[in-house]
């Protein structure tokens, strides 16, 4: 059984007990435990079920590479699936549950898949679900969705109560990884005076060295770590951070760090996670190495663990995996596990060493300790189901013929080590295959390149392929110095720490155990634990022609689980290359992508949630709207009142009331969101002539003109009223959503094409509040306020004037988007609310009625005015909308003119704008198509037009619409049919789009 040893546990504090639950059951651990170590200490070996076959699984590792021990953490709004028990620090009250089983962890119906495994081979989903197609929607897809995913996703309505934040950091040298290599690299870099940031993903410094032993400068690794850490902490130019993982390396020295601040102490009142957005001149990855499993039958049975992880649990947590541990290896390092277990009084029945000659000094030491060493041997298979009960011994060179059976309750396996090259590879660093050590290591000649063309990432220690302690520190010192130099500092000459550890005999690559294992064994030899990919699956993929490692990966799902193949990658591609008869470097690796381990969505979002996610732009009258029943509509980043609901009123009733009040007497519209751009300078007129389809240079000061803007592709992009302020100044109104876009459009042309033209542009949208005073009594209200002359003679239609009304300084434009007598009045934004209040109060005698965007839209549609975004959709040219009158024939050029001359744009069959009136008075569905006879090449019904705007007109008390119809303007009075959403059709007559006051008598009084 797995249990807590009587002594030991350098990271735990046995004086502090910690209570937690797993599947509702109460357990106790110690401060400093991980969830995995605490569960193992309680003999809770099985922590989850695998994805495909639902096999019982215990932890196989002790850190970030763990594929099996994934749990649900937390309850209710704090629930989070797929959390690794091996990296979850224990705290009082922690509540975890296991995943992917029903009804219970111990008895899981889904485990039947394991019995059916020969019918669920690689590519099963592709083969099974491809035919027949009609079964997809109701049979296959629900089945796959049901069985997809390990953990339970939070409910869609759940709101994460925790807070998250982003940090921005700039540093000369960033060191990722706080093991001995990272510490030494940081020190070597910092001694040059460079600013150094050192981040470590766990809560502890020193990495593996304190567990693996050896000597550094005459000290234990642990003492050296403490001393070096103290030195670094005393340096002002060094910043240290634990629980902060290097998640990804990106272009030009951009690195994301993922700091977990409160996962180990949820009561803390700080953000939970912090995303570090780091810009580093140089990056050193000192990310260590990860041990590889060996591929033998039953290597996934709980109790089979990486040899180094078994050491970690003993040394760091004082926890043993079992009483009798068989060690199986192809290298010397695993002997350390055997010797350690022996030293704490546990039994090691045998070390099975696949190498015919066995190992070096460490083997001799094991033999001296009386441990049975079997050279050239292999595990035939592991016995047991929910727990290891023994192993069979066979010859590595054979097919698995039984030589002996060894009873044991744990197996320590080691297939060698793989440098953690992920961060090196994220931004393009290349790898090279090290034949001697059988792993991919960084090819330092092919490093990620920064903006200056120089490398910006270097690797240190085990991550650089220097696994042995003595080489690790030397390499780290060199890396630290060269990074400092590359960052522009002069490194100090110093002596790298002298480290000693036992020499090791070379490893022998073993990709399958035994070498001649038959199908029965190969189909029980796991490569990817989480996704249940076995040696036989990868071989099948190769057989079926998946020769590219990227294809084989997707076909078998090897390395596609939440651990992203940290353990399975090399074993998998070695198996593939073997099956293809090629060398490993020829087959290559799959792409390493960030993040290194999953990071929370909360950390990615940071502060950008709720109101901060996208700040809302507010007009000076916003608060009044909010207090007076505004039914909001998002327009660009603004919120505009769609209508103002009075008590007991529906939205439709409110809109109806607002339209009628305006047409009958007086309406007020907050038009402040309209874009206002000043264009000024000696060449401003010439510039506007290029920008608008019509002529703006001929506009007289004091006058307004409606203008259209096309893109260079000819399509209508914005419209609005332009006022000429003086000889060289124009004020351009844009649509609400178009202000920033059109201002940028102006700047782009001015800066990149006509840069010698003397023109200035300023976006003054937010400098002014603008209110439309609309209706037959509009002039009476302004006259009551008193001040400037607003009579028809002094201020005619399409004129503007500066002056004062009721003591407010204002600019008054006589323009109308409703067809009524209308003044749009701009006042400084700071006076907007006061002016709004004054207009309402003084207008009360005419029932002054604030109206919203829907009333605005209806009134403009009644007048046949187009709306950008309704009548236009990026494929419509002004000519389609009958706006030829606004396209100057006199100008040689304007943006879009050449494009509008293209044959498709001058095609007489383009759909053109008309009005539409249903015969039964109903409202046409928005976007509905007018049907035509026959079918097109795709078998779809032919069409001859579509609805672009449609409303119930309160003024006319019937449905009115505008639409684009084939030869529409030539077909007045004709009746065509439109599809309805209910499935039928509705008849509508083609009419003029101007439904109300076609002669414009009302606005021009």
């Amino acid at each position, binding site marked *: 059984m797995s249990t807590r040893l009587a002594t030991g546990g350098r990271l735990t504090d046995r004086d502090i007990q910690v209570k937690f639950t797993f599947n509702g059951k109460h357990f106790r651990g110690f401060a400093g435990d991980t969830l995995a170590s605490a569960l193992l200490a309680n003999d809770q070996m099985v922590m989850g079920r695998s994805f495909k076959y639902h096999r019982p699984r215990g932890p196989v590792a002790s850190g970030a590479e763990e594929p099996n021990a994934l749990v649900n953490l937390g309850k209710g709004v704090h629930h989070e699936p797929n959390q690794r028990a091996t990296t979850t620090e224990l705290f009082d009250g922690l509540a975890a549950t296991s995943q992917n089983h029903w009804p219970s962890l111990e008895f899981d119906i889904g485990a039947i898949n394991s019995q059916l495994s020969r019918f669920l081979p690689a590519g099963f989903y592709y083969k099974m679900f491809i035919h027949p197609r009609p079964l997809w929607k109701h049979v296959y897809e629900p089945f796959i969705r049901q069985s997809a995913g390990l953990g339970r996703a939070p409910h869609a309505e759940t709101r994460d109560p925790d807070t998250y934040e982003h940090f921005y950091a700039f540093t000369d040298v960033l060191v990722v990884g706080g093991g001995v290599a990272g510490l030494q690299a940081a020190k070597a870099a910092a001694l040059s005076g460079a600013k150094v940031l050192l981040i470590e993903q766990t809560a502890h410094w020193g990495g593996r060295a304190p567990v693996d032993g050896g000597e550094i400068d005459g000290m234990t690794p642990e003492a050296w770590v403490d001393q070096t850490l103290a030195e670094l902490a005393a340096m002002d130019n060094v910043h240290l951070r634990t629980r902060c993982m290097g998640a990804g390396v990106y272009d*030009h*020295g951009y690195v994301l760090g993922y700091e977990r601040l409160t996962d180990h102490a949820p009561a803390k009142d700080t953000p939970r996670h912090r995303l570090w957005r780091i810009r580093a001149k140089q990056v050193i990855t000192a990310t260590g190495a990860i041990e590889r499993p060996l591929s033998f039958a039953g290597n996934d049975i709980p109790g089979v663990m990486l040899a180094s992880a078994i050491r970690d649990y003993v040394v760091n947590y004082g926890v043993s995996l079992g009483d009798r541990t068989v060690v199986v290896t192809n290298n010397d390092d695993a002997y350390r596990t055997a010797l350690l277990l022996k030293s704490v009084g546990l039994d090691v029945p045998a070390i099975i060493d696949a190498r015919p000659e066995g190992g070096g000094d460490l083997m001799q030491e094991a033999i001296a300790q009386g441990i049975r060493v079997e050279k050239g041997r292999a595990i035939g298979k592991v016995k047991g189901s929910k727990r290891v009960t023994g192993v069979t011994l066979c010859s590595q060179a054979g097919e698995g013929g039984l030589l002996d059976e060894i009873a044991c309750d744990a197996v320590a396996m080691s297939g060698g080590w793989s440098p953690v090259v992920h961060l090196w590879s994220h931004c*393009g660093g290349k790898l090279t295959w090290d034949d001697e050590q059988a792993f991919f290591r960084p090819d330092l000649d092919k490093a990620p*390149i920064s*903006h200056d063309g120089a490398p910006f990432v270097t690797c240190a220690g085990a991550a650089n392929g220097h696994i042995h302690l003595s080489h690790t520190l030397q390499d780290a010192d060199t890396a630290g110095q060269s990074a400092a130099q590359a960052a522009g500092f002069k490194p100090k000459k110093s002596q790298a720490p002298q480290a000693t550890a036992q020499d090791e005999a070379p490893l022998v690559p073993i990709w399958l155990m035994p070498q001649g294992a038959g199908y029965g064994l190969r189909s029980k030899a796991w490569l990817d634990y989480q996704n249940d990919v076995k040696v036989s699956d990868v071989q099948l993929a190769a057989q079926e022609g998946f020769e590219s490692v990227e294809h084989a990966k997707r076909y078998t799902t090897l390395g596609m689980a939440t651990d992203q193949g940290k353990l399975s990658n090399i074993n998998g591609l070695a198996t593939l290359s073997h099956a293809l008869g090629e060398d490993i470097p020829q087959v290559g690796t799959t792409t390493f992508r960030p993040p290194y381990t999953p990071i929370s969505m909360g950390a990615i979002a940071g502060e950008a949630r709720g109101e901060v996610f996208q700040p809302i732009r507010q007009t000076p009258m916003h608060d009044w709207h909010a207090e007076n029943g505004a039914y909001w509509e998002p327009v660009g980043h603004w919120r505009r009142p769609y209508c103002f609901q009075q008590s007991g009123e529906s939205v439709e009733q409110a809109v109806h009331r607002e339209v009628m009040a305006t047409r009958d007497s007086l309406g007020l519209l907050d038009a402040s969101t309209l874009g206002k751009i000043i264009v000024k300078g000696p060449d401003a007129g010439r510039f506007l002539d290029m920008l608008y389809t019509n002529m703006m240079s001929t506009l007289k000061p004091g006058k307004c003109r409606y203008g259209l803007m096309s893109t260079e592709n000819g399509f209508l992009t914005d419209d609005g009223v332009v006022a000429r302020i003086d000889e060289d100044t124009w004020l351009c109104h844009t649509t609400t959503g178009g202000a920033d876009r059109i201002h940028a459009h102006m*700047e782009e042309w001015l800066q990149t094409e006509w840069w010698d033209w003397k023109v200035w542009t300023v976006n003054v949208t937010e400098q002014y509040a603008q209110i439309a005073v609309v209706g037959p009594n509009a002039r009476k209200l302004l006259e009551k306020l008193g001040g400037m002359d607003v009579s028809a003679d002094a201020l005619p239609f399409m004129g503007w004037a500066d002056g004062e009304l009721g003591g407010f300084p204002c600019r008054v434009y006589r323009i109308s988007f409703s067809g009524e007598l209308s003044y749009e009045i701009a006042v400084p934004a700071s006076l907007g609310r006061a002016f709004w209040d004054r207009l309402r109060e003084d207008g009360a005698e005419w029932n002054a009625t604030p109206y919203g965007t829907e009333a605005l839209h209806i009134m403009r549609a009644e007048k046949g005015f187009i709306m950008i975004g309704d009548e236009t959709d990026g494929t419509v040219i002004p000519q389609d909308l009958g706006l030829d009158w606004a396209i100057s024939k006199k100008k040689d050029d304007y943006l879009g*003119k*050449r*494009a509008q001359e*293209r044959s498709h744009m001058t095609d007489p069959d383009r759909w053109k704008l008309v009005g539409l009136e249903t015969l039964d008075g109903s409202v046409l569905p928005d976007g509905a198509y007018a049907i035509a006879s026959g079918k097109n090449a795709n078998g779809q019904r032919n069409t001859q037009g579509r609805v672009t705007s449609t409303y119930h007109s309160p003024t006319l008390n019937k449905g009115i619409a505008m639409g684009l119809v084939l030869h529409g303007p030539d077909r007045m009075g004709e009746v065509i049919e439109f599809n309805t959403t209910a499935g039928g059709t509705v008849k509508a007559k083609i009419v003029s789009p101007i439904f109300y006051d076609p002669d414009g008598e009302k606005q021009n009084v």
Partner: protein
Amino acid sequence: MLTLQCPYCGVMAEETELHAGGEAHLTRYGPGSEDQDFESYLFKRENPKGVHFERWRHVNGCGKWFHAARCTVTLEVFGTYPAQTTEPPQDIKDTITAKRPGWSLRNLT
């Protein structure tokens, strides 16, 4: 995430401060131009593997448009320069030639 130095304000700008504007040094064709020239101006863009000239705007900064010469493979930036020019300055071209001998793009060498 790229960093480009804005040639106007001198800031080493993060990509989030910038707005990408596609290929640089295009010639505008207006009314009266041949269909082929106009099509090329409006739609045809180089997508080179290697040396490229791009338009960028320091939109969350000084607001100025500028050009960047860079390598689309290694992301090395050869230089940035103001947009008020019809072709890359000689010193930029010299830098590229030193680092990528024999380069060419459209009619630029």
